[in-house]
């Protein structure tokens, strides 16, 4: 809504500069988009909130100003000269068949008007308001709309069949060509203004008039409609028609039904002034929706309970009076100013459908009094605050991943269906969008992997070759008609694990990096284990499933070449996805059950076993074979070197296993160690056909 500063002065004698005025309006609830100084003076752009249709006219804004500055608001009392010979009631007939859509319909008739261009002053005000000038009669309706906030429509009286208006619901597939020249198909539930026997639509009630009855330069006689339409029906209709007009905005937010007759009178006055002619006496006024004004009680007790600081009686009364609520003290202590028991009975003005309750009155008082007058303070806390249950586990995972060199990302879950399908397990029902913005974003990711690959791709395409990323997020799936959001950790890495530097050589990121890093996370949860297997998009030779206490929580591995090529990823990509809920609870449990292990008092001794093993024999087989010997003094076993190639027969590999022996009771003797080693070698030779290499 563009507010023409000079126009306001028709109604309130405001002295403040446009800047000051805009600032005060903003601080009392009229959002200000900006101020422009044009040829017609200052124009303030007010972004009126949807609950305040009364502010969609200069008179309504003037009322706000009168309340803010405590200035009198000039009344609007148009008294157009009426014909003594003819009555409107004889010249026009109105019937409302759908009072649930149209609560009031007024019609006035003006005969012998001369349609011509508007005078300059009128053109100027319309132009300043951003409304095009058409002719004096149409301009008069627009002018009154901008002035009083109520939309009107002028018909060519002679084109309205039988001079009869019937307001009804649209018939199925009913058509109308609106003023903008577009033929529109109406849906039932839309309010239609029809004429004659009601077979022809001549307007969409509260939205736009029809082309067939519009005012032209040959129009002589005018039928002036000023009505009131049900807001919800208007909003539905405007949305269904995709037709949002000045009229639909005002009626859709809830116009003032009482204003209909006044605005009609004001507009008639203006038409007589601009176009001459004769106004038939009286008005046809069908008003099935008339309501008695609501009484609302405001108590100081409630004001204090909500606002936490007081407002003086005078301020309460002057603000509410200026806004039209006619407050009357009704409590026992009427004489006592500032009484805690004070209560005011207020009357809801017809233009403030948004104010129905005591809380609404409190807001009115507070905003006019000034929100800055309520002193800020911090409320006392009455109970302890809690973080999310997984706060600590999540924080530790995140810190460790960052320490391991991974950067945290946040991705948009909207992805393309075909891309999502690459990683989606076969039995998963994706969460597709009914109204996606594009086909590239028509489904919510059913795995974290799909957006992780996009993030890697983004970086690879921009020369960032060595990237390690992680995301703590969710994936989204459906089960029937239910949605399932699962918290997940997704890891993606590519390029070099270590770049060539001054002191080190370069090394490519490998499966072992991924495994080591995941195990570093699993350590928080009491240790993770790995099993064979994994999704089809993972390279079968470099993948595994991750479990905590035998419960599978995810998988990790190298992206297959097939998928990598499809995504045009031209280097090895490593990916992992873990479910966070079981990981979080395992971390919590592990933390709770962790106990101190006394440090060994006797030295540990390492023995290396250089083994030749058949391909397919795993390190875990070696460990199991040694464990089976049940030697209590074995403190640790690790693989320290692995070699294939020269000097190693085909089909075999060389593995160096380091065993640490340590006793809690005594220093181990050479004889004991020799015995342990012999037993280990025997076991490995027997069970795994391992050969001990001479080192």
């Amino acid at each position, binding site marked *: 809504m563009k507010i023409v500063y000079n126009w306001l002065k028709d109604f309130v004698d405001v002295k403040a500069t446009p800047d000051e005025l805009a600032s005060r309006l903003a601080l009392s609830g009229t959002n200000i988009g900006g101020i422009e100084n044009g040829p017609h003076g200052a124009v303030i752009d007010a972004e009126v909130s949807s609950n305040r249709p009364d502010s969609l006219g200069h008179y309504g804004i003037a009322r706000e100003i009168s309340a803010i500055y405590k200035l009198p608001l000039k009344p609007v009392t148009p008294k157009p000269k009426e014909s003594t010979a003819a009555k409107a009631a004889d010249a026009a007939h109105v019937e409302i068949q759908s009072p649930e859509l149209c609560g009031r319909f007024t019609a006035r008739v003006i005969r012998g008007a001369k349609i011509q261009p508007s005078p300059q002053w009128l053109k100027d005000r319309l132009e300043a308001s951003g409304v095009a000038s058409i002719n004096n009669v149409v301009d008069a309706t627009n002018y009154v709309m901008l002035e009083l906030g109520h939309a009107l429509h002028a018909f060519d009286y002679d084109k309205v069949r039988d001079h009869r208006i019937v307001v009804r619901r649209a018939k199925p597939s009913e058509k109308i060509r609106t003023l903008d020249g577009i033929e529109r198909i109406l849906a039932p539930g839309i309010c239609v203004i029809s004429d004659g026997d009601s077979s022809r639509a001549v307007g969409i009630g509260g939205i736009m008039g029809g082309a067939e009855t519009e005012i032209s330069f040959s129009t002589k006689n005018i039928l002036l409609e000023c009505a009131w339409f049900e807001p919800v029906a208007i909003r539905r209709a405007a949305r269904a028609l995709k037709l949002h007009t000045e009229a639909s905005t005002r009626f859709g937010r809830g116009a003032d039904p009482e204003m209909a007759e006044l605005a009609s009178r004001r507009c008639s006055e203006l038409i007589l002034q601009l176009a001459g002619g004769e106004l038939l006496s009286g008005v046809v006024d069908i008003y099935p929706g008339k309501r008695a004004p609501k009484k609302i009680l405001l108590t100081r007790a409630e004001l204090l309970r909500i606002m936490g600081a007081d407002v003086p009686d005078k301020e309460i009364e002057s603000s509410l009076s200026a806004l039209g609520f006619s407050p009357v003290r009704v409590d026992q202590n009427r004489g006592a100013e500032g009484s805690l028991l004070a209560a005011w009975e207020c009357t809801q003005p017809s233009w403030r459908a948004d104010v129905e309750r005591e809380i609404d009155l409190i807001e009115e008082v507070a905003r006019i009094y000034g929100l800055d007058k309520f002193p800020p303070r911090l409320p006392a806390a009455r109970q302890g605050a*809690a973080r999310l249950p997984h706060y600590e586990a999540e924080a530790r995972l995140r810190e460790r991943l960052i320490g391991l060199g991974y950067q945290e990302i946040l991705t948009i879950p909207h992805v393309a269906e075909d891309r999502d399908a690459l990683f989606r397990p076969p039995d998963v029902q994706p969460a597709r969008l009914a109204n996606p913005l594009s086909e590239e974003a028509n489904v919510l990711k059913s795995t974290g992997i799909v957006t992780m690959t996009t993030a890697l791709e983004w970086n690879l395409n921009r020369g960032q070759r060595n990237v390690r990323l992680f995301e703590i997020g969710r994936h989204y799936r459906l089960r029937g008609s239910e949605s399932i959001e699962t918290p997940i950790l997704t890891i993606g890495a590519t390029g070099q694990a270590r770049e060539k530097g001054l002191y080190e050589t370069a090394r490519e990121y490998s499966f072992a990096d991924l495994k080591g890093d995941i195990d570093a996370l699993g350590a928080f949860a009491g240790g993770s284990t790995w099993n064979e297997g994994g999704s089809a998009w993972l390279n079968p030779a470099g993948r595994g499933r991750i479990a905590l206490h035998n419960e599978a929580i995810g998988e990790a591995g190298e992206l297959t070449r097939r998928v990598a090529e499809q995504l045009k990823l031209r280097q090895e990509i490593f990916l992992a996805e873990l479910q966070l809920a079981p990981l979080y609870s395992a971390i919590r449990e592990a933390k709770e059950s962790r106990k101190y292990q006394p440090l060994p008092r006797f030295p540990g001794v390492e023995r290396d076993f250089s083994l030749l093993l058949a391909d397919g024999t795993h390190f875990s087989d070696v460990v199991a074979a040694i464990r089976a010997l049940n030697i209590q003094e074995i403190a640790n076993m690790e693989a320290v070197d692995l070699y294939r190639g020269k000097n190693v027969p085909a089909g075999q590999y060389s593995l160096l296993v380091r065993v640490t022996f340590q006793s809690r009771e005594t220093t181990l003797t050479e004889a004991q160690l020799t015995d342990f080693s012999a037993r280990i070698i025997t076991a490995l030779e027997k069970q795994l056909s391992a050969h001990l290499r001479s080192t």
Partner: protein
Amino acid sequence: MTMSTPEEKNKTGLPLVHLGIARPEELAPLFADLRGRFDEECACACDESSWKQFRDTWLGRKSGVLTQITDNWLKPATQELKRVVGQELNQLRAHVESNIEERRKSIEAGADETASARERVDLSLPGVIRPIGSHHLIRQVLQQIEDIFFSIGFSVVEGPEIETPYYNFEALNIPEFHPVRDDMDTFYLDLPKGAPQPLLLRTHTSPMQIRTMEKRQPPVRVIVPGKVYRRDNPDATHSFIFHQVEGLAVDNDITFCDFTGTIEYFVKQFFGPGVKTRFRPSYFPFTEPSVEFDVSCIFCGGSGAAAGGGTCSKCKGSGWIELFGAGMVDPAVYGFVKYDPKKVSGFAFGMGIDRLAMLKYGIDDIQVFFQNDARFLRQFP
């Protein structure tokens, strides 16, 4: 190197009687002179050989100054003087011994500095650079906000991003065809036929107000960080996904003053104590009174003028930046969660994190948050 004159040196070679000293109070100046002489010489001992000579002068067993004092002053002194000489001598000895030792250490340390250029590290070269990751900037801002509110008694809760119209709209006093729904263009899920209710991507974190109040009785004090979605075409300032932190405090005595106090506390913690704040009346269906909350522009300091002349582009010359919407919980909302609106009151707010981060760090394109370019991520370790 300034050495002491022979006369001075000689003093310790002569018994006190010969120096004409008979009274104890005459001893102090004598020792003070000695200490001055020592300090002077100490400063001059700047390499190993001069230090050795200096040490022998003072601590030499046969003819060091301290030995001389013992032999010539202390031993022959009268009973009256002996006690004082002893005291003075002990003090001087402590001073001499500790300073000589310190001097030695500093000379040795200096010797490392003279190592050849070949052996020295080049400090301009980097150390071993290990790859270290980073927190996403949005996560950092979320964490900071969470910490501030946690410190004043707000618990943290999370909720689903896929919501029902009931929680996203209806229970928040936004019935169907409410004009506010036009401002929140909404993504809906494509559900199988016969689905009991539509599902949508939440347009704000406010549904968690309802879910929280359904589960808990007052006092309630929570914040809800999370992703929200609006069906806007993406550009530099719009993303169809962004992050919000919802706040809700309900109790039997929460007032508007508590609300503004809480918000001001937060903003001063977040942007710094110098920031000015204002509350403008506004409209949201689920708060009453409703406000828009502004802070003084952090780019122009609230002046509205750009540094290089003209108006500040961030606040468009107003001096204020709109941060978020908030207000006192509308009593109608309590009806949906079976709270008694006559007994409880409270406030709620919902702030956009991406915008806050953009303001604080001068980011002019919201899309960078979601592109995850490693070069961007590294800027905020």
